């Protein structure tokens, strides 16, 4: 059953145009970095376009932007039942909380991981373009692409997915998940720029910075250009610590989400019921509406009508956007 739920999720998302658009965009991102001499991320001039270090750095960097895409896979997997209205039908079946939550998560995660393959693939294709100066391209080795995907991308995406899955489960809204992501990314950027530049926090950043940049720069601090062109990231020391930390954090988030999730809508708490009872006692008698409709009003369709129509639509739209979605 779990397998089936995850497979359905995977197949469902593969039909989602968002998946293909993001695949294309992230392919371009990877492609652009290696196919263009002007674009590079923090690598000195003699480092090859397809150096294992460059690939690792890019694999890490793109995973921040990927958060926004993951929202549409992973958050959608859990929010979809509420937004489409199919939820009651699914939740009334014998699927069970465990299969429901983990099946949806694994399906969404699989899609996210699959889609992210576009980045290394884009880099590979980019570095093989005929216009790229052969001087700047090193030997092609599939391991150079796969290793960072394994060590950097998979833990990062696992953490991003768990985070969004939790956010979506608790807020039950795509909009709030997106808002949450924006806030988190902003917060992350602010914190990492403030502390990243300070030497005394370097070790701390390397250990706990969730996308692994601190750990990568710590692990490769004394690398020469030749190292960067030929050495895989060593999965040891601070990098290993960081990756384990990221996976553990993801596991904690998932556990919290699982615990918070409920198949049935819970009844309001005793305290809330008491409050409601108190509120209701204060109700005044309601006015009675006019029973008879008079046809004495007139209808007009001119420019003032158009204005009134526009204003009332505007007001409604603003109210809709500002009202708390839920």
């Amino acid at each position, binding site marked *: 059953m779990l397998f089936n739920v995850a497979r359905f999720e995977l197949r469902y998302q593969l039909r*989602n145009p968002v998946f293909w658009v993001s695949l294309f965009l992230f392919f371009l991102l990877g492609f652009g970095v290696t196919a263009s001499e002007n674009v590079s991320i923090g690598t000195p001039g003699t480092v090859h376009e397809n150096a294992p270090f460059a690939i690792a750095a890019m694999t890490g960097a793109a995973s921040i932007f990927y958060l926004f895409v993951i929202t549409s896979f992973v958050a959608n997997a859990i929010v979809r039942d509420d937004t489409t209205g*199919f939820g009651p*039908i699914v939740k*009334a*079946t*014998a699927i*069970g909380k465990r299969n429901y939550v983990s099946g949806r998560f694994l399906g969404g995660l699989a899609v996210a991981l699959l889609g992210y393959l576009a980045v290394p693939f884009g880099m590979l294709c980019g570095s093989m373009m005929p216009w790229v100066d052969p001087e700047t391209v090193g030997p092609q080795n599939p391991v150079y692409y796969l290793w960072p995907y394994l060590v950097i991308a998979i833990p990062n995406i696992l953490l991003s997915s768990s985070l969004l899955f939790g956010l979506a489960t608790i807020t039950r809204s795509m909009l709030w998940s997106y808002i949450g992501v924006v806030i988190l990314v902003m917060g992350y950027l602010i914190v990492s720029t403030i502390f990243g530049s300070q030497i005394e926090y370097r070790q701390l950043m390397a250990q706990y910075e969730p996308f692994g940049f601190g750990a990568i720069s710590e692990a490769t601090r004394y690398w020469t250009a030749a190292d960067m062109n030929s050495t895989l990231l060593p999965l040891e020391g601070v990098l290993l610590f960081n990756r384990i930390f990221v996976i553990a954090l993801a596991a904690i988030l998932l556990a919290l989400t699982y615990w918070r999730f409920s198949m*049935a*809508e819970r009844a*309001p708490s005793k305290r809330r019921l008491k409050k409601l009872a108190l509120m209701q006692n204060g109700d005044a008698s309601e006015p009675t509406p006019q029973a008879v409709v008079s046809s004495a009003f007139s209808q007009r369709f001119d420019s003032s009508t158009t204005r009134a129509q526009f204003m009332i639509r505007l007001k409604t739209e603003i109210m809709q956007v500002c009202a708390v979605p839920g």
Partner: protein
Amino acid sequence: MLEIVGVSHTYANGTRALDNVSLSIPRGMYGLLGPNGAGKSTLMRTIATLQTPTEGAITFGDLDILAQPEELRKKLGYLPQDFGVYPRVTAYDMLEHMAVLKGVADKGDRKAVVESLLNQTNLWNHRGHFIAGFSGGMRQRFGIAQALLGNPELIIVDEPTAGLDPEERNRFLNLLAGISDNVVIILSTHIVDDVADLCPRMAVLAGGKVQLEGAPLDLIAQTKGRIWKKTIGREELDAHKERYQVISTRLFAGRTIIHILADSRPAGFDDVEAGLEDVYFTTLADLRRVA
């Protein structure tokens, strides 16, 4: 078989949708009638374990469904009053997925079950189309198909015939009538005659309370000699409403037929063969008089 004892539910906004509802529902079909907002859907969702009531107990056979909702879900078929569907999924794929969720593990069995249900709900020709593109009635039939999947022992269908054309409605009612007598089927509807035709037992819910419970035939018999009818012009209606306890008014060929409740026949009124609708309206009229 299904015992509902003292169930009350208050929503988070303070609406008291169910007020101390107790019902004993035997095997076979059970009709739930009630005006809009009576609490029918709330009761059905509660039995379907989709929401926990603020008070009360529900058992199905030996099973305490509030304590073990997952056990009930294994035996449940549920059609919500209104539901949406995922985009970009065909009727066949969705139904087959539902079959997995309902525990039909064997692939061959699943194929057989899905195909026969698509046939029974007359969706076979649309099996390859996206459900999101279905018409309202076709979507409703998809909902029916999934509710009947996998030999449920408890079937809860909330206004299943809403949106069905007359032919499809008949097909569905026949399908429902053909389901084994061992199954508990709870059906809510606004078509009083459907309950009269199908259900050996029924209840009327209004204002979150059970107003009436019993066998339609008994209930109809009880109103015998208390309902009278008269055909009047529209302008006479108000005067009649003041003088008599009018329980229903209906238009027929431009004239108004009123049914009234009285212990003996007032002058100018005729006998009627009372139907379940009169029972229903009498119950509601009583309720209004008390209020």
